[in-house]
């Protein structure tokens, strides 16, 4: 899979066997009473990486972050940072800083004092603190608000203060807990890119927790998809999207059509999958699926073509009826009910303004896709 690496920049230490992980979770388990928040989890994060922990609420992603910050100790297993075991080191001695979801700005201190707080703890000289605070204010474009109190700022400005405060000490790792969660959509999109620029500029390792897949896809070098205290897949955004390793990951990120069936025929690369109603799907890159396995064929809606007549050249073509249409402006989503009852979602980019012979409700339609358009999932 040549094109599924990091598309953002030439940076892929995880595929280099020589590279040493910067943060390493080794068989980490965390229990709160009977509840297992994190279950025997191992994970490597590399220096200068922008790493995202993505999952629904309660999946253990925040617990993982809090263990890294030192607010929780793992029940078993260990966490290494730059080769050092973090067990027993209190939060105030760890070389990591956290940006809190609630921002946790000190309400009785001005913006300046908030940013200077961590530097004062370090025993930095007054002149150095002033210089660093000015630098941070400039970085987050809040020079004019230095003497304001947090309650006099807007939500976006508070977010920037929290960010400035957490990077002021130049931590080895910056932890961000839902950093954009409290912002409105437009501001969130702008801030995503600012965060990425900031990370590049400062050369820090970022670990961000989020439940917003778009946010994780946009910002992160790699994403760990978490569910019930376990990591389901760790990969680049493109890999997660185009080559999910399980039904869960495929369904969690983006939209997907799953065709359940079993492998009827297997060659070196390709496989023929037979669905329950006898539908045949030919797939390239069938991975580890062996003949006779129960598998799911996963294909994204935008990789399916829809037409009113059976396409002549298509290897995979299935017939059905247009069940529903959602016109979204930039694209149109068709829901096609196949003859075996399954509903398939296919999206078409509206590249032209005017379409001849458009499909409409209850029309007979054919969906087709290339043999390499989807993946075979065994899990």
């Amino acid at each position, binding site marked *: 899979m040549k094109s599924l690496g990091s598309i953002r920049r030439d940076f892929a230490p995880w595929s280099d066997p020589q590279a040493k992980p910067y943060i390493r979770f080794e068989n980490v388990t965390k229990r709160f009473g009977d509840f297992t928040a994190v279950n025997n989890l191992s994970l490597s994060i590399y220096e200068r990486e922008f790493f995202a922990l993505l999952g629904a609420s309660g999946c253990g992603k925040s617990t993982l972050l809090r263990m890294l*910050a*030192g*607010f929780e100790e793992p029940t078993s297993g260990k966490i290494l940072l730059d080769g050092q075991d973090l067990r027993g080191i*209190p*939060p*105030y*001695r760890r070389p*990591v*800083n*956290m940006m*809190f979801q*609630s921002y*946790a*700005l*000190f*309400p*009785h201190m001005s913006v300046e004092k908030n940013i200077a*707080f*961590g530097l004062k*703890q*370090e025993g930095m000289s007054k002149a150095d603190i002033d210089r660093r605070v000015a630098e941070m204010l400039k970085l987050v474009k809040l020079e004019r608000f230095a003497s304001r*109190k947090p309650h*006099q700022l807007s939500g976006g400005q508070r977010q920037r203060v929290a960010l400035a*405060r*957490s990077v002021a*000490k130049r931590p080895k790792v910056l932890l961000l807990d839902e950093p954009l969660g409290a912002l409105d959509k437009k501001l969130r999109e702008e801030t995503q890119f600012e965060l990425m620029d900031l990370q590049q500029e400062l050369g820090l390792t970022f670990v961000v927790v989020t439940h917003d897949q778009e946010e994780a896809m946009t910002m992160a070098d790699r994403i760990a998809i978490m569910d019930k205290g376990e990591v389901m897949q760790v990969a680049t955004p493109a890999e997660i999207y185009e080559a999910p390793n399980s039904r869960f990951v495929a369904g969690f990120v983006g939209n997907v059509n799953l065709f359940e069936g079993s492998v009827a025929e297997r060659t070196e690369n390709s496989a023929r999958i037979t669905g329950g109603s006898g539908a045949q799907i030919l797939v390239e890159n069938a991975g580890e699926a062996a003949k006779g396995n129960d598998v799911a064929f996963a294909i994204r809606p935008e990789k399916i073509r829809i037409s009113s007549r059976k396409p002549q050249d298509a290897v995979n073509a299935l017939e059905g009826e247009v069940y529903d249409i959602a016109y979204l402006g930039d694209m149109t989503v068709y829901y096609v009910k196949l003859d075996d009852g399954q509903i398939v979602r296919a999206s078409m980019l509206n590249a032209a303004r005017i379409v001849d012979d458009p499909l409409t409700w209850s029309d007979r339609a054919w969906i087709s896709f290339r043999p390499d358009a989807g993946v075979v999932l065994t899990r």
Partner: protein
Amino acid sequence: MANVSASASAALPAEKTFLSRLISGFTGRLLILVPYAWLLFFFLIPFVIVFKISLSQSAISMPPYAPAIDFSEGISGLWAALRELSFDNYLWLTEDPLYFNAYISSVVIAGISTLLTLLVGYPIAYGMARAPASLRPTLLMLVILPFWTSFLIRVYAWIGILKPEGLLNQFLMGIGVISSPLVIMNTYTAIFIGIVYSYLPFMVLPLYSSLEKMDNSLIEAAQDLGCPPISAFWKITFPLSLPGVIAGCLLVFIPAVGEFVIPDLLGGSQTLMIGRTLWNEFFANRDWPVASAVAIILLLVLVIPIVLFQHAQARAQEQDR
């Protein structure tokens, strides 16, 4: 025609809101009237009566001061009475050092007691605020529980504990810590114990309410930025609980200055507090005018600094905005 009806229908909702605003304005005013009426009848009018008595002369009569206003003579009687009023009683207070000393000693005793109450109350409130949420209502009830018995009985109970043959001395001698009983009764120590005990809930409740609503992530953020827990307490928790500290201190200090029962029962005869002086003037000397003057001065001693303080605070908050 169409125009007219359109404008009429447009005006209708406006009138409606005006009317409803008038009604809501009226009920709003009625609501604020209630506390004002309360203050008028139970603070301002009694204050004026006491102030008037403080300007009178004591007399062997009923009531024991002159002049009394003779309402049968109408306005002229009122004028005649007002003409005889004087500030002699206030001058008398400045001539006898007893009163000045009593005021000073009351303020000092109340101040020390308030500080002690804060020192005892803060850890209690902090512990309550940090307790599991399911336990907090119970703890809160335990703090309020002493109010269910009479204040007087509780102070009497302390006599039983503190007196030379009391529970405390018996216990300490029993375990061999001391060989002869400690003298606590009829000392200032007993007064401090009594005040701290009696007023502790007034300190704990406002402290608890300000500590309880504090966001724990602030403490975590402070620690995350390199601040050890004790230092985080002084830099974050304590400054943010200041409104509770101030409210608690005022709630303890103000009644403690004028406290009469505790110094009288636990402090013995030689303790000098303005509450006792006041009582003596009223009931031992039957000098109502001087007693009233003492009460008026006590009120001024308490009210003026508090008003100034609150004014300064309101101003500081205004500047913050």
